[in-house]
């Protein structure tokens, strides 16, 4: 017999300033069922969850709970309706015990005092219902990542939710912790009859845990089916975006004859040895693909001296670079990174001229006494602004007046002006831009590598733009390089599979 649905959404749509984040999503969640939601970055998974938890409000469509139409105005409404959410980031208070954390915000009291005994009993009750064993009386700082995650989930269960949303709960767990954790999640749905929406990037665990799988692509729910009717391949293919990006004309080059600008093997940072074997040639654009948390940004930051490394060694333009190099030294060596978050690349209230000039105060624009020449700065600023087709009023206007695309043009434009620029690392340079602005960035990138004096590391979460622009794509997963693909062998399904796989071995295609 078919169980009744606890949650049902119909035609749920959400737009952000014209961009569709969720497009007419239909989904129903039955009693005691686990549905996994899987999709690429920006596929609309979190927007969907945030509408269920009342953080966002749908533009169109309806949400039904137990067949009754529900208006979820804020997170409190959502909790009252029995929806519990566990966010990807930890929300525990260090220093408090497990039991205290579980009852945080819903403390038991006797008079004006906290009733520690009652809280302990409530936490214990949940623990017994779930049949697990987590220390409840020690400060949570002393617990491991897996135990903390269990406490976090127990906290969500305090209010007796009937629907539990878990956002990438295994992201911070170690290899050995994942198996027991998945059993635990299944236990919640069986023993407490709670329905679960399980959001994940990892296709293996999704197949292990779910009753049904929903695939999100470009804001739409493109596939929902029982696990037994699905294969991993079918899910990956469903995740691929429709071809919306017209291919940019990439000129043919004899890459093999070009010298390597950077060669990396392995480095130790963030307390781990990372196997990051890749190289970039002069005149080449190499794409860096991976899902959120796959370690591309971390790797780029480490290479530029922004992230401390216990062991840092790579070959730059034929010369060995060791760990002591600071960001300034790397810039002097001709390596520069433009940040993923555009605000970290600029001073909003400063003028355009100052935003361009500040990178060159150190040497080019100042004399021996350290005085900055305003005339030289303005000259350089005018050059950068016109060379990069920035749309602006005058160079004294504040940076914040410009659109995202024009800001990015300035950030890239000034970066390539550094002396003897060899390697430009662009971290999500087209993030949040419209198609037209993206094309201008692509054109600029092709122009930078045109004369074969510099290479570009192009970090992006949009596989399509990487495929259309890059000569090779380096795929990251869990902090390591798991695959390097040549342009002639680009295959979306193949690359996505590599990025989704956990603990895969390095292979060359």
């Amino acid at each position, binding site marked *: 017999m078919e169980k009744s649905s606890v949650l049902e959404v119909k035609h749920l749509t959400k737009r952000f300033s014209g961009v569709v984040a969720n497009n007419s999503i239909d989904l129903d969640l039955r009693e005691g069922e686990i549905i996994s939601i899987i999709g690429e970055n920006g596929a609309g998974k979190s927007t969907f969850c945030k509408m269920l938890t009342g953080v966002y409000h749908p533009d169109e469509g309806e949400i039904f709970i137990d067949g009754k139409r529900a208006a979820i105005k804020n997170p409190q409404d959502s909790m009252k309706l029995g929806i519990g959410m566990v966010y990807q980031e930890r929300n525990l208070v260090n220093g408090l015990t497990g039991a205290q954390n579980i009852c945080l915000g819903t403390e038991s009291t006797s008079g004006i005092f906290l009733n520690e005994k009652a809280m302990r009993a409530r936490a214990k009750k949940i623990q017994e219902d779930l049949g697990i064993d987590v220390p409840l009386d020690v400060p949570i700082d002393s617990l491991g990542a897996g135990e903390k995650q269990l406490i976090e989930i127990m906290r969500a269960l305090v209010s007796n939710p009937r629907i539990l949303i878990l956002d990438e709960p295994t992201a911070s767990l170690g290899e050995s912790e994942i198996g027991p954790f998945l059993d635990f999640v299944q236990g919640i749905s069986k023993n407490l009859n709670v329905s679960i929406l399980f959001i994940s990037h990892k296709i293996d665990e999704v197949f292990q845990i779910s009753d049904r799988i929903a695939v999100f692509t470009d804001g739409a729910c493109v596939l929902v089916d029982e696990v037994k009717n699905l294969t991993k391949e079918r899910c990956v293919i469903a995740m691929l975006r429709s071809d919306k990006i017209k291919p940019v004309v990439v000129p043919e080059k004899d890459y093999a004859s070009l010298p390597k600008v950077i060669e990396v093997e392995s480095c130790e940072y963030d307390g781990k040895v990372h196997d990051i074997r890749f190289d970039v040639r002069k005149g080449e654009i190499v794409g860096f693909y991976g899902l959120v948390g796959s370690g591309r940004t971390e790797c780029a930051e480490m290479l530029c001296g922004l992230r401390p490394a216990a062991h840092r060694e790579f070959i730059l333009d034929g010369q060995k670079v060791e760990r002591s190099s600071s*960001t300034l030294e790397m810039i002097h060596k001709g390596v520069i990174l*433009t940040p993923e978050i555009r605000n*970290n690349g600029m*001073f909003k*209230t400063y003028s355009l001229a*100052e935003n361009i000039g500040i990178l060159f*105060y150190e040497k080019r624009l100042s004399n021996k006494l*350290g005085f*900055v020449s305003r005339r030289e700065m303005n000259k350089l600023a005018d050059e950068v602004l016109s060379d990069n087709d920035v749309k602006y009023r005058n160079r004294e206007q504040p940076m*914040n007046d410009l659109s995202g695309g024009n800001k990015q043009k300035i950030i890239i434009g000034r970066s390539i002006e550094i002396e003897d620029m060899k390697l430009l690392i662009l971290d999500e340079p087209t993030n949040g831009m419209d198609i037209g602005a993206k094309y201008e960035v692509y054109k600029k990138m092709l122009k930078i590598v045109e004369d074969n004096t510099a290479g570009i590391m192009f970090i992006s979460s949009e596989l399509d733009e990487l495929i259309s622009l890059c000569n090779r794509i380096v795929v990251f997963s869990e902090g390591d390089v798991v695959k390097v693909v040549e342009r002639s062998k680009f295959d979306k399904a193949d690359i996505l599979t590599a990025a989704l796989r956990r603990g895969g071995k390095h292979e060359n295609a």
Partner: protein
Amino acid sequence: MEGNRLSKKDSTIEFLGKYGIGFFTILVAVFFGTLEPAFFKGRNLLNILSSACVTGIAGMGITCIYASGELDFGAGIEVATGACSMALLLRTDWCNSYALAIVLTLLIMVGIGLMNSFFHIVVGIPAFVSTLGVSFLVKGVLKYLTNGGGIYALPQWPKAFTFVGQGYLFGVIPMPVIVLVAVSVVMLLFTERTKWGKYIYAVGVNSKACNYLGISAKLQKTIAFVLCSVICGIAGIVQGSMLNGCLATMGDAIFTQALTVLMFGALFLKSGVYNVPGTLVGALLYTIILNGMTLCNTPAWAKEVVQGALLLVALCLVASAKLRKDAR
């Protein structure tokens, strides 16, 4: 037409935002002048200028540290250290030259600046408490060295000791004014024209962006701590000379004064940005108000109420100016 009128209104607002505090200063002066005619006497005006100097110079010091996005609660004790160090050094037999005493004092100030920077930047204690801790420590040492009381008018002090605070250049211009102008000019050039000054401001505005540009926020903040301490030390040298002596507690009131001056300054020229010309105007405004109240025989408690109110008003205005700027 419509557009023109709008832009005219906008530019009026911009003009007032830039120079409003300057006009307000003149207004306050006229107010006290009509209330008490002695206010505009040449002697009183010189008085105002001289007493604006210590606050003004100390204000330059904390302009540096606030520009870098940090704060230094020890500014007052740094002023006292400057004065006490001069008095104590010149009391000894071995330090017999005024110039040597100046050099050693400034080195001591560098040391205090580095100490502030060490506890905040290296150890990672919030600047609010670390500079407070350092200032208590230094104050205790000063009290010990001055035997708990003050040191006044020692016979072995050279003439130069009082000249900096009480002398006149060409017989007209008070020496403290010369020091204030000199410090301001150097600071103006440093903050507006040199790369180091620009870096200090940049770190205060967006230290993350600085990292990507190879500008070390830690180094810039350390420079700011040292500069703040050294400039406050100079203010102390001037004040000690004015008093012809020193006292471990002499800087106690200066921190709040300098802070108010700094905040008023951030309303001049560059709205919401601490800047050198602004600090100068702020120092003038502040001293005029205090001087005017003294001339009008305002009781001591009322002066304190006014000082506190001035600080709060200035803080509110700066906070709203910053909000407006960020919202743009």
